[in-house]
């Protein structure tokens, strides 16, 4: 009797759901139309929509392409750069001497690598983000040079490029493009680098109102020792609408020639030793007000824009490095004989190479997908995507370099081979441009904020006990459990994914749908206190990174098959392997995120750490201790 009732109920709910779904579908179509009209001002981003359990496939399918002319131009550009790096750059010497020799720097300048993204009218190469990423693959072969270049143009002069006015551009960009002037980005200060309160550098307006006097110290400034132009962020007093005085951050272009600038001794670092990192202190540095980037008090947005969009290139850089390592290591594995078999025949060695190939493939896919998204017209906000690329590639690189070194065993540990240098160099990737921890918080919280704004009403209704909403959700859950099909339209008749990737696409869809409901339940449970649930946020970020990586490989592999690129079957293999792996990882992570799940060890993990941190030592007794 009861069962029957339930069945009827579920049926009716299903009916209702269908009706709603139909309506939603209709509305969705309307949205799509609207979107087409205003395609230039893109407000939605792919990653954020995943938090709502939506797959905005138009954003990521098909995989972005560049035109034939661009490709040709790029190939012309890539060849000399590659040649230069293979022949002229002595990475070992740079690492040993902890300085990049001037002739190498001059070579880089001649190649135009100091002005890759500066428009041609200012004497730069004027390349797109995609092309920048491609060049990044090569420059990454030497960590010190890559960091020097990135500090110069990815962050150092980016402020002038994206927020400067024409006068500033005319004045500074030409010299920066040729490398005559080198730029640096000065934001971090002594104290903790991830604490907003640590910005103490202050800019005060002089009495005549024409200059600012900057006072303060900046830490960890790449290129700090030799930079001529610096983007400096300092607190300024701003009067807001209510007439209250407030401290706001303002960005300034500061020339070393302004005076009052002293750089400290270069830091002796573990890796990227050739790059110059030091402390810079400003003492009454007089900066004309024309040198304010953007508006006074608007420096924070400038800083975030610079940083948020600069990270994507780390993906291609990591991929470039791994590709090189695969070449080096596979040669060794093929020639080295052990027990009358070459290393390449051993399963565990093969495992390492598969890891490297998979990682390189995923990194590449993510980096160029993101770069392509950023190259679209309008002002796309790809900061979450870029952060994901950064996290995935920095951690993947570390693992791959370590595996490559392992293949060589003891030899890899010596300075006779470049592996130890790569290992040291790539350790910084997880630290700079926003540590991976902060970026995970950023990814998870940005998405939570976005989803929360939309879901708040619904969740509140649910908490109030609105039967309609509750039944709707129950019905949805029931339906999901009975008919276990999630369909975002990636596969099937009008699918965007190639049939050979159907299974992976289904896995992705299932993950994405589950992610949506996981986010909802997290919001339901924690509300705005989610900020304090760092371990949960970490898992959310990890799932999202996996989802984005799955999207990228699906999209890329589909394109490769469709246009018949060489070895596309291998890409399919890689894509399917990665997706399956990520699917299970995601499922596990999301199971952990369920309430009271036995898989979740977070409480214990916290407790373990707290005990140790309270005593500031490992507190267990020694296993050999006795009590009597």
């Amino acid at each position, binding site marked *: 009797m009861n069962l029957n009732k339930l069945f009827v109920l579920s049926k009716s709910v299903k009916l209702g759901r269908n009706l709603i779904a139909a309506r939603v579908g209709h509305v969705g179509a309307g949205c799509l139309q609207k979107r087409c009209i205003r395609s230039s001002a893109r407000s939605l981003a792919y990653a954020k929509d995943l938090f709502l359990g939506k797959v905005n496939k138009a954003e990521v399918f098909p995989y972005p392409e560049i035109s034939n002319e661009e490709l040709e131009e790029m190939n012309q550009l890539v060849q000399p750069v590659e040649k230069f790096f293979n022949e002229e750059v002595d990475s070992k010497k740079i690492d040993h001497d902890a300085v990049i020799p001037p002739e190498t720097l001059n070579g880089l300048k001649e190649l135009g690598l100091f002005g890759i993204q500066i428009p041609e009218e200012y004497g730069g190469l004027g390349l797109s983000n995609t092309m920048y990423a491609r060049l990044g693959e090569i420059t990454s072969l030497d960590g010190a040079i890559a960091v020097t270049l990135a500090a110069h143009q990815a962050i150092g002069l980016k402020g002038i490029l994206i927020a400067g006015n024409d006068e500033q551009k005319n004045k500074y960009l030409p010299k920066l493009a040729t490398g005559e002037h080198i730029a640096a980005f000065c*934001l971090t200060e002594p104290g903790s680098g*991830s*604490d*907003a*309160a640590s910005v103490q550098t202050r800019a005060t307006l002089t009495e005549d109102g024409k200059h600012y006097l900057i006072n303060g110290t900046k830490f960890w400034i790449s290129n700090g020792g030799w930079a001529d132009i610096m983007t400096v962020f300092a607190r300024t007093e701003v009067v807001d609408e209510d007439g209250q005085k*407030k*401290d*706001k*951050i303002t960005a300034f272009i500061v020339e070393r020639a302004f005076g009052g600038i002293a750089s400290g001794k270069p830091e002796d670092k573990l890796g990227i030793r050739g790059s110059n990192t030091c402390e810079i202190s400003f003492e009454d540095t007089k900066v004309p007000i024309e040198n304010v980037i953007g508006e006074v008090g608007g420096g*924070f*947005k400038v*800083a*975030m824009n610079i*940083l*948020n969009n600069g990270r994507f290139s780390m993906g291609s850089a990591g991929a470039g490095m791994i590709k090189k390592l695969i070449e080096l290591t596979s040669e060794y594995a093929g020639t080295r004989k052990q027990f009358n078999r070459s290393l390449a025949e051993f399963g565990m060695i093969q495992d390492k190479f598969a890891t490297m190939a998979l990682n390189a493939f995923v990194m590449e896919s993510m980096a160029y997908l993101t770069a392509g998204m950023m190259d679209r017209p309008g002002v796309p906000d790809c*900061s979450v995507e870029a*952060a994901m690329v950064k996290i995935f590639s920095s951690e993947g690189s570390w693992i791959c370099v370590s595996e490559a070194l392992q293949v060589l065993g003891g030899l890899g540990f010596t300075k006779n081979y470049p592996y130890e240098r790569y290992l040291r160099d790539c350790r910084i990737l997880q630290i700079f441009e*926003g540590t991976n921890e*902060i*970026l995970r*918080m*950023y990814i998870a*919280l*940005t998405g*939570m*904020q976005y989803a*929360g*704004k939309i879901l*708040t009403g619904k*969740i*509140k209704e649910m*908490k109030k006990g609105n039967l309609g909403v509750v039944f709707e959700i129950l019905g949805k859950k029931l339906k999901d459990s009975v008919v276990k099909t999630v369909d975002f339209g990636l596969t099937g008749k009008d699918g965007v994914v190639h049939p050979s990737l159907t299974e992976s696409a289904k896995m992705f869809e299932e993950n994405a749908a589950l992610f949506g409901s996981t986010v909802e339940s997290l*919001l*339901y*449970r*924690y*509300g*705005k*206190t*989610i*900020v304090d649930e760092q371990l949960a946020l970490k898992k959310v970020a990890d799932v999202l990174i996996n989802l984005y990586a799955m999207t990228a490989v699906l999209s890329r592999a589909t394109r490769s098959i469709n246009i018949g690129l060489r070895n596309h079957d291998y890409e399919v293999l890689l894509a399917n392997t990665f997706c399956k792996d990520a699917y299970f990882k995601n499922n596990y992570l999301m199971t952990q995120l369920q*309430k009271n799940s036995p898989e979740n060890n977070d409480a214990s993990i916290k407790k373990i750490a707290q005990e140790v941190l309270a005593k*500031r030592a490992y507190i267990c*007794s020694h296993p050999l201790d006795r*009590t*009597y």
Partner: protein
Amino acid sequence: MVSELIHICRLRKQKWRQRHGWTRSEKGAVIIVLRSFHCSAVCSTSQQDQKEPKEASERETQSKDRTLVTHEDIFEKAAKNSKTKGNFNRVVDVFTKNDIRRRGHVEFIYAALKQMPEFGVEQDITVYNKLLDVFPKEVFVPRNFIQRMFNHYPRQQECGVQLLEQMENYGIMPNVETKVLLAQVFGKKSHPMRKYQRIMYWFPKFKHTNPYPIPQVLPSDPIDLARFSLARIASDPDAKITVFQYQTTDITETGEEVLRPYIVGIQSPEQRSLLAKHNHCRPVFVEGPFPLWLRKTCVHYYLLRADPIPPEEKVKKEFDPEWIGPEQSLFYPQRVELDLERDIGDDDSFDVDDVEEGPVYAMCMAGQGDETTLAQWISDLQETCPTLGQIPTVFRLESGPGELLTSSDVQQSPELEFETDHIIEDEPLYSKRVKQ
């Protein structure tokens, strides 16, 4: 079954005691009729070489033959000069050698147990083992199952248990020697053996229950002791201990000797920054002495504290929402703009009434608890925190360190406290007179 047996044994024991008129006095001293020692002659000859306490006591007991003498007296007399471990051991040795039959050994052990704290050997495992050794070996070991079933030599067994009990009370862990002795004396399945096994089961488990252990022997140097005590009270591992002044004696021009007592202070960086932010109009208080017990030692410390900050004066530091919100990726985000609270099901917080207390800025221990010394401490603190000089400092000192206040003292002290409760001006740095 076993418990029943034990019960029967106990009943038997009581009856036996009643029959024999054998009672233990309340103080635990066992009074016995001292019969003449059989070996007295041997004793007196063999102990010629043994000098002083023992001999004296022995002779006296001999002279008072056939009188009531307690074993305690032997100890008392033996320790006329000094109560040391050596003397104690000698008494035990004498008893053991006196009589091959060890007559009266139970009473002797009871008396010895009672005397142990006075001789300062209550913490010494070797002494306990020595006492156990007084029991004759193998005599009390049950030889068949019937003996084993009933309480074999109950008095002796109880005495053995009592000895172990005393060890337990002083937290002394028996060692292998104890075990061997017990096995020799009472056998492997006797009550004392069971007691031993129980001790060995529980003691190791409770050995490290105190998360803040105090060493058995405290540092003798008062400055080291102060360091140890202050570090123990201060919960912040970053807190820094400073010895502001070592104990010295100065001789003034008039030839008087002036003792400059030691001052040891502790302050954490957080306390320092709190003190720097202290509102200059509000006074800070030097209070004390407060007692701190370290085993049997009591030390005293002083606080520099202030009243709780009234809510209207609290400045909540607010960051630019732009900086700490989720829409940035460089700094640690601390805020999400959502109109959703935590769900009740996930709210694990307790409903705790927070009683706000005023901040404690620093602590110190000093050789003397007078105002001069503590004022010296305050002026030393000003080296790291110059603003302290502008803050009115009120000394609220109770009667100096030393004895803890007994209940009668407390009743008398209020007026005294009121008298000492006055303000001193902090030399040149602070000119405003503050009335309390």
